[in-house]
């Protein structure tokens, strides 16, 4: 039996087998004898999640545009299929060729969230590739990783050969070209890594030595070779309007989380909410012109056959020409029976005009990310929306017939008091009042307000990177306080499980020693940690204990401004002094204007193409 025949037989007994066999419309199959560099793009979570990820779609077609490169996809199998693979002795394979990953030149992981870390180890093991970087001696396969979590990749540094910092459209090709050159002349892994370290945005963790103080804090991070720069700068695409964007997607057979065309309209965010990592690490704010967006929308819809297109960004309504953009896009989508969705809108520019537009394209409810219950705390986190804006938007929405409102909040934010918690309940009740004040003939039948709270996780490269996370006991108390304060049956509360937030905080701010704990937890069977049914916090606790690491040291400890952070050798262009200044302002509940209102000097040079930089 061929590998394919074997796999096909096994698929008769697993859940949603279409996830494991490839062959989807848009998947790229090449003749491997004509390929110089084979790249396996691995998403360390199941197909349904990974196939929804826009970054993978971009890099997949970017690499496949090049005749001599072949990029394939690989995902984490569900537990049932994983067992089938093990029982039948089939190594993890990529979906296009069905070839095992160990035959590839490069294995690339995208680290989108901390709870996917152990899946990286599982996937390597299933592929029969040594999990530890030091145990992989040959040039192939090189294991690389990118994505937002790479802004502090230290807890993954034992497993990954190369981290790619920032935006991947240029640096991925540069790295693969270099690899090709070294491979052709029969060079070694060591040689390749030394050369790669010269490329901007490339971080080779083994080229840096880390020392510690007696109190467990970091003493020094220093390169151990002249080839490695003391500070590694993230990559930015300055000419965002002309950046590569795919004109096709791989269209899955089975349903996935985001099953639609997606067009990126802008990158970066002008807002600077102090808890938000994306708001800082993706700076500066750049946008695409209307014609480009229109063209990309049309191409994608025609190629994929999706009847829905979504505009992707951190805050779509911040596009400088949003009204015109929506109008022109709607001209196309209306004609083609395609529905248009806008996932990230902000309250403050949510006008009745825009609402009118949305009414024709969306059937879902309103979602507000208020984040905090009182104006004082919203000022602390620099979420510049006011209660009156929220209420007036709700009023407009209720008059337009909307009947479901979702409100997102965080618990455990810096400086938070019980008054702030009660403020969440108060705000929800005020929104309820607005509904009942809306004339009966205008408003819809029955109102449902959902309040969701998540636990605040302090993240690197934000002004709150210095802040401790509230302890699980404290979060528990706060949640109970909120439950008591919500009195209406029309308001539903859902809270986030805290154990995962604790682990997220540890992994987000962890140092190199935490690699051992990740390894240990994985050895104990931790994987698919992002899934409640698989998450086992007790095993993680044991793993930390066995490695002599204290979760509270990482999650619940306040850092001084002069403490060396595990990610201080990485340069995400926003200066530390700006972050410190923002942190100080937070404690004074002082807000900072957004980029559009005027530059606040975060440190990003205007040569990076930011729309508002230096203005």
């Amino acid at each position: 039996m061929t590998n394919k025949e074997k796999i096909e037989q096994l698929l008769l007994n697993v859940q949603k087998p279409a996830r494991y066999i490839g062959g989807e419309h848009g998947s790229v199959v090449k003749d491997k004898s004509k390929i110089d560099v084979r790249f396996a793009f691995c998403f360390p979570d199941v197909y349904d999640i990974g196939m929804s990820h826009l970054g993978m779609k971009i890099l997949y077609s970017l690499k496949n545009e090049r005749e001599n490169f072949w990029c394939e996809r690989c995902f984490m199998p569900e537990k049932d299929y994983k067992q089938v693979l093990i029982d039948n002795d089939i190594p993890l394979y990529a979906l296009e060729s069905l070839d095992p990953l160990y035959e590839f030149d490069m294995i690339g992981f995208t680290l989108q969230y901390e709870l996917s870390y152990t899946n990286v180890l599982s996937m390597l093991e299933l592929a029969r590739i040594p999990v530890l970087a030091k145990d992989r001696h040959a040039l192939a396969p090189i294991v690389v990783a990118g994505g937002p979590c790479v802004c502090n990749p230290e807890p993954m540094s034992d497993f990954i050969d190369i981290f790619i910092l920032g935006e991947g459209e240029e640096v991925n090709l540069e790295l693969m070209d270099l690899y090709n050159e070294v491979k052709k002349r029969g060079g070694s892994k060591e040689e390749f890594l030394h050369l790669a370290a010269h490329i901007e945005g490339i971080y080779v963790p083994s080229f840096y030595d880390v020392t510690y103080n007696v109190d467990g804090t970091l003493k020094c991070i220093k390169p151990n070779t002249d080839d490695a720069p003391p500070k590694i700068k993230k990559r930015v695409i300055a000419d965002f309007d002309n950046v590569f964007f795919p004109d096709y997607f791989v269209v899955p057979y089975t349903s996935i989380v985001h099953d639609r065309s997606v067009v990126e309209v802008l990158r970066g965010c002008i807002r600077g909410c102090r808890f938000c990592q994306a708001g800082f690490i993706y700076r500066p704010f750049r946008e695409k012109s209307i014609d480009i967006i229109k063209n990309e929308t049309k191409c994608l819809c025609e190629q994929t056959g999706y009847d829905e297109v979504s505009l992707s960004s951190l805050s779509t309504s911040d596009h400088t020409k949003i009204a015109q953009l929506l109008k022109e896009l709607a001209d196309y989508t209306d004609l083609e029976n395609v529905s248009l969705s806008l996932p990230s809108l902000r309250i403050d520019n949510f006008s009745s005009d825009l609402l009118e537009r949305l009414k024709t394209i969306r059937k879902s409810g309103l979602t507000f990310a208020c984040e905090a219950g009182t104006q004082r705390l919203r000022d602390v986190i620099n979420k510049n929306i006011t209660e009156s804006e929220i209420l007036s938007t709700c009023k407009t929405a209720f008059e337009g017939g909307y009947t479901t409102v979702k409100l997102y909040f965080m618990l455990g934010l810096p400086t938070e008091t019980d008054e702030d918690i009660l403020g969440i309940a108060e705000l929800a009740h005020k929104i309820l009042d607005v509904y009942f004040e809306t004339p009966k003939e205008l408003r819809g039948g029955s109102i449902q307000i959902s309040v969701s709270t998540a636990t605040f996780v302090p993240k690197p490269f934000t002004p709150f990177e210095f802040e401790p996370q509230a302890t699980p006991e404290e979060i528990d108390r706060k949640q109970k306080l909120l439950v008591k304060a919500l009195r209406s049956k029309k308001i539903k509360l859902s809270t986030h499980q805290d154990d995962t937030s604790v682990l997220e905080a540890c992994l987000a701010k962890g140092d190199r020693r935490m690699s051992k704990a990740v390894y240990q937890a994985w050895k104990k069977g931790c994987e698919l940690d992002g899934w409640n049914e698989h998450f086992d916090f007790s095993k993680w606790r044991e793993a930390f204990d066995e490695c002599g690491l204290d979760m509270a040291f990482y999650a619940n400890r306040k850092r001084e401004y002069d403490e060396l952070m595990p990610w201080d050798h990485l340069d995400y262009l926003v200066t530390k002094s700006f972050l410190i200044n923002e942190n100080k302002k937070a404690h004074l509940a002082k807000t900072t204007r957004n980029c559009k209102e005027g530059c606040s000097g975060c440190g990003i040079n205007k040569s990076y193409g930011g729309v508002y930089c230096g203005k």
Partner: protein
Amino acid sequence: MANNLTPKNMALRVERYDYRLVFSKKGRARFISHLDMMRTFSRIFKRARIPVWYTQGFNPRLYIMFPLALPLGTESDVEIMDISLTERMDSDELMTRINSAMPEGLSINKVTEPAMDHKDIAASQYNIRFKLKNDKDTCGLFKDYLSQDRINVKKRSKKKGLIDIDIKPDVKLLSIKEDDGFAVADLILPSGNDKNINTSVLMDGFKEYAGEEFEQIYTTRTKIITKTGENFT
């Protein structure tokens, strides 16, 4: 909702033209579930720019109808799908346009008018190519299995869970031969609204009878048969 009670396209009373497509589902495409076929075809039609007719309600949907479900993992030469278009199209052109937008494994073989009713469907013919593990005499064992007085198997019922039934009267073996270590059987089982027996019911029963797992099994639906014994497609 207080205002705007009319569905989006209620005002448009569009003419509809009905077509019956006969298509095959082979290779990797056999892992597309019945539920996912709807999604898959709606995208194919969109890519092929077929003027499909939308249902007229609050949530307009493509009108696609599959009278018979095909079990996940089974191939077929004769799947049926009824669709409606908003304009008349030449059968050949319709077929070519759709086929140019199809993914690997799916292809339209025939376009007809929906002459017969779905209710006329009574049975399906299958070609099953299979081999037991550990070099068992698959062909001989299968013949023995079918020649029992009763063929007791377990069938999943919606109401009662797993039930024991005798399918002896339902199985009609047309031929069985050995080919390259495989047993190859052509047989007929009931399909449709009145009675439906999945090949896996028969084959799981065989596995139990033989006391061995399959090393390989390939099942293909080759014909759909009406109550009067005619070929439905």
